[in-house]
């Protein structure tokens, strides 16, 4: 099955001499025993399972929303637990520093006064309405879905911090459910860390945001037409909380209520999956029906907790991202555990000149987009596209950053009747409240075509289950009293 398999860069399952990495050995052995036909049969079974379970995402094409079955590749991506433990600490370190930053920016602004982060770059995403607010635990960003990538030499970088409404965690959980069904035997022979604690940990954090005992909690969704609606519904269900739309909410005297069949019932915590500026039409965009009038007032009065807090978007900016290592040093007095991808700031004159001279080698990103929109991959772009982006950079240098084109690592992926390398990234989810939690692994996204670096599901990318394998764990003795009934 893997004869002739060759990656042009770092491969997650095989080392550069083509031998399975220790943490992937059991998996590779099992796959070779199965053979390609059996593997293809199981892939088909997995797809049928996904369709029947209605695991879907919505794509928009020519104004029509189409509910698509979630694209899933059966061969998992494997990470050694020892490496993961280090990354986990690094992710929490990062989110803690970012929270210090948001709190500082809406409070005394020490970091700006000290000149560590230039004042002029917090212009986008900064909401004056949030100044002086005091969220519980002084935490603003409770949920973060960072994108990690691994370069040719094996170094793992943080590519982006997604702090607004990162999605994908439901697919991470569903991928595991599917994999357990099709590869049940593999879970018996080795120690693969479970992933299903996430909804419970999220619920605890949300619950801790309200001073009231047994608070009423809701997931605020933009509605059925949102591409991540499946996830909103999934999380509400897994946590046993309400799934709320803007029209279900009403605010009276700075207290938020739900319209229920029993009349109005107070709501204490909203896990909002709508962007900052859609939360409250009386404060932000008057045309938005996704939030509800008065929510900001209820939040500021401390009667309603919102996660992530309004205003968090100030740190979800690719230019602000370039300062996160400085934030870690400034607030925590530590060195960053996971490095940033080296990034050129077009707002800086020297960087900008360099970027314009090397467009064809770089990846150009607009600072405030997400979901892969607006990105120009230099080596794959036409000369017209490069000329266009050069013009845009010149007219709005604040709006762009550039990074070297990384050779994202690969994982063997089933393509029709053979296995071939595909580039991947990894989106773990980090939670922060009174304490912190990181998912065991995360959502591995995989590019569809050979050589492609685009992994976004909205752009045709797929996904894989991610295994954190503990190669040092000893198998339990046969009569182990723990685990199971």
């Amino acid at each position, binding site marked *: 099955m893997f004869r002739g398999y060759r990656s042009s860069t770092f491969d997650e399952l095989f080392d550069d001499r083509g031998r399975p990495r220790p943490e992937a050995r059991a998996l590779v052995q099992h796959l070779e025993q199965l053979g390609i036909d059996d593997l293809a049969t199981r892939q088909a079974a997995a797809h049928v399972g996904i*369709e*029947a*379970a*209605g695991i879907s995402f919505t794509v928009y094409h020519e104004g029509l929303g189409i509910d698509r079955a979630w694209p899933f590749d059966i061969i998992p991506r494997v990470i050694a637990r020892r490496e993961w433990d280090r990354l986990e600490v690094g992710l929490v370190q990062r989110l803690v520093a970012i929270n210090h930053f948001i709190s500082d920016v809406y409070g005394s602004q020490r970091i700006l006064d000290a000149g560590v982060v230039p004042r002029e770059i917090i212009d986008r995403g900064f909401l004056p309405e949030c100044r002086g607010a005091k969220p519980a635990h002084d935490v603003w960003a409770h949920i973060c879905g960072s994108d990690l990538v691994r370069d040719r030499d094996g170094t793992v970088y943080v590519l982006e911090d997604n702090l607004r409404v990162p999605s994908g965690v439901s697919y991470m959980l569903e991928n595991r459910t599917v994999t357990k069904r099709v590869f049940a035997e593999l879970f018996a022979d080795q120690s693969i860390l479970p992933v299903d604690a996430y909804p419970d940990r999220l619920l605890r954090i949300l619950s801790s945001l309200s001073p009231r005992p047994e608070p*009423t909690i809701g997931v605020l969704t933009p509605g*059925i037409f949102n591409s991540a609606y499946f996830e909103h*519904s*999934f999380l*509400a*269900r897994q946590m046993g909380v*309400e*799934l*709320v*739309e803007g*029209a*279900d909410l*009403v605010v*009276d*005297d700075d*207290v938020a*209520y*739900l*319209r*229920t*069949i*029993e*009349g*109005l*019932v*107070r709501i204490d915590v909203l896990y909002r999956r709508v962007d900052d500026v859609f939360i409250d039409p009386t404060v932000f965009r008057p045309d938005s029906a996704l939030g509800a009038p008065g929510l900001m007032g209820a939040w500021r009065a401390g009667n309603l907790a919102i996660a992530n807090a309004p205003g968090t978007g100030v740190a979800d900016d690719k230019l602000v991202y370039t300062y996160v290592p400085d934030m870690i040093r400034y607030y925590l007095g530590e060195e960053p555990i996971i490095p940033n991808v080296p990034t050129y700031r077009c707002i800086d004159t020297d960087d900008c000149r360099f970027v314009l001279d090397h467009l064809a080698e770089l990846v150009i990103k607009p600072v405030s987009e997400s979901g892969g929109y607006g990105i120009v991959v230099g080596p794959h772009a036409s000369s017209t596209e490069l000329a266009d982006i050069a013009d845009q950079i010149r007219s709005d240098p604040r709006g762009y950053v550039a990074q070297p084109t990384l050779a994202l690592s690969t994982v063997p992926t089933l393509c029709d009747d053979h296995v071939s390398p595909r580039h991947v990234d990894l989106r773990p989810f980090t939670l922060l409240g009174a304490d912190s939690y990181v998912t065991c692994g995360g959502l591995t996204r995989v590019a569809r075509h050979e050589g492609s670096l685009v992994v976004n599901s909205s752009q045709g990318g797929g996904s894989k289950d991610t295994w954190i394998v503990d190669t040092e764990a000893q198998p339990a003795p046969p009569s182990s009293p723990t685990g199971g009934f």
Partner: protein
Amino acid sequence: MLLSRTAHDLYWLGRHLERAEGLARVAREQTNLMVDLPIDVESDWSTLLAITGTTDTYALRYDGVSEAEIMTFLLADIGNPTSLVRTVSAARENLRVSRQLVPRSAWETLNRLHLLVVDRTANCTTRSARQELMDRVVASCQQLCGILDGAMTRDHAWRICQLGRQLERADLTTRVLDVRAGGLMASGSTPAQPPADRSPYEDVQWLGVLRCLAAQHMFQRATTNGVDGPAVVNFLLDDPQCPRSVEHCIDQMERLLVELPTRPTLLGACQGLRSVLRHRRSGDVSARQLREHVDRVQLALASLHHVIDAGYFSVGNHPSRAAARST
């Protein structure tokens, strides 16, 4: 707690599921009946249109009244808002926005039913293929309701869904009685005639009425006098124990309404429905009397639906401070 918006979807989930099962059952039994009837008895597939209340919609879309056309219209036509494929799709949309409240297996079952119906209704051209599909649809709806009944907490979400099911069920029973029983009484013999003088096909048709409401066996257990028109009508309207009788549906709805948040107008409308149902003299057995009676019951059902809609689904559009503070 149950959001008004979600309650609306759960209520319609109940209605659409019951409607889908009823439609599949009625289509299946009509086919069974046609197989039994002699070839010289004129096949009348258009009673299916009358039962589903789609005679006018149909006439706009089709010229003939053949079995194939009518079945296509009822099962596969996406231009017919009450076709099987549209009803199952609507149920799926209802559950898509309320699936966080029901067992996961309920969603999977409905999703599979949806894939089946979308995939198969358009090209089941033979009777046997159609009958097999109807069997699967009925079984699948029953499986789904079994999952809801067996695994859902008896909270407002479950009650609202049940309320929709019971109302739709009572509605279907009255529609079948209106069209099929009314027709049979108009054309058939009078009850005074001894059974030996009656057409052998009349019994078959009365049995068909019972079968499409899944009530044949229970009727036979409840009576020792054999199938006869007025007894069937009484059974389907007034039997307190048969789950398909209008009386039983009202009983169930009343219990649900007592446990749901109190709305005086709702219980009033339900009791109003019951008194309309009871206001029938036992001697009223003519086709015209039956039809008038069933019409009054249907009007009362419709007004119950409207007060449910107003009472639960548009709650809080005018937030009252007093109501808000007390919760």
